[in-house]
């Protein structure tokens, strides 16, 4: 409850309307709940949805070379707006209406920990 109130005060009405009342910024839990189903619990792109007929491999977050091609802003955008917003597969869902901005920022940092990389700068 306190969390909801603070959130509303800090990020204003728009964020409140978009936000589901999810748990406070426990990024690990957020990742395991929403992302691991495709990207896998350790980020290797091997979640249970990736069967032999899955059309395109979900990004392997442990691949530093691939993850370094993306800036933190790129990562944030694709999480918010989904694959097609950056000419990637629609199998990467848009999460902007599901997650709070705080949760998405947490995920961007979390992916940097998994890839042990800093991402494209500037």
């Amino acid at each position, binding site marked *: 409850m306190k969390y909801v109130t603070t959130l509303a005060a800090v990020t204003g009405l728009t964020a409140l309307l*978009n936000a*589901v*009342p*999810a*748990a406070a910024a*426990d990024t690990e*839990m*957020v990742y395991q*709940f*929403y992302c*691991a*189903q*495709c990207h896998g*619990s350790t980020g290797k792109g091997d*979640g*249970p*949805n*990736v*069967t032999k*007929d*899955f059309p395109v491999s979900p990004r392997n977050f442990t691949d530093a070379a691939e993850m370094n091609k993306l800036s933190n802003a790129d990562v944030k955008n694709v999480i918010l707006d*989904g694959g097609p917003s950056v000419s990637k597969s*629609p*199998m*990467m*869902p*848009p*999460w902007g*209406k*599901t997650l709070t901005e705080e949760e998405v920022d947490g995920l961007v940092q979390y992916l940097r920990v998994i890839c042990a990389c800093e991402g494209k700068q500037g």
Partner: protein
Amino acid sequence: MRQKLASVTGAVCLLAMATASYADGQAVFEAKECVACHYTEGPAQEKTIEDQQAKLGPELWYAGDKFQAEWLTAWLTDPQPIRPLKFNSLTEDNPADHPALSADEAASVGEFLMGLTSGEVEAGTVKVKKNAKGRQIFTKKMPCSGCHEYAGRKGNVSGGRSGPSLVDAGVRLNPDWILAYLQKPEFFKPVKMMPVFVGLLSDKDMANVAAHVANFKPKK
């Protein structure tokens, strides 16, 4: 007989005419300890990820909105897996060990569950028929098929495994509920592994994709 009556006269008459059976069903539901894993009173209790993960089975407080009565009664006597994976697990398969009821028990529990409605589903909004736009959304435009199994034209099953299987969903789910579930995520289930599509799909496209899903039926 009872079932036919229910589908013909609708929920309001059902409540008025068959209160005894609804109460019987509720008694069986409690005696069989179904309550240990399912809650039957709204509103939604899943406010956080922890809330969802603490549950042992799906919520049933809007079962009367969600299911088709005939499917429900039959499933209760022979509960075959709906979710490919074990509830709340990403690694284990569905153990296919759901408790089964006798035909009599299933008939009364079915009436009890079909009486659990929310008032948030508008009847007759989804026209179930072949819907090319809905198909496009389900398989190409949106990631639905990434998380849900469905049967292709030749009956071959493909799709993801984290969501409930939608193979033959047209026999199991109420088409109007599918639309309401897409339109009112915060009402039916505020926190779940499925993304919110409000603001991403128009009401019209939600109706299209609902029609497509409701048209998933066994091949004759």
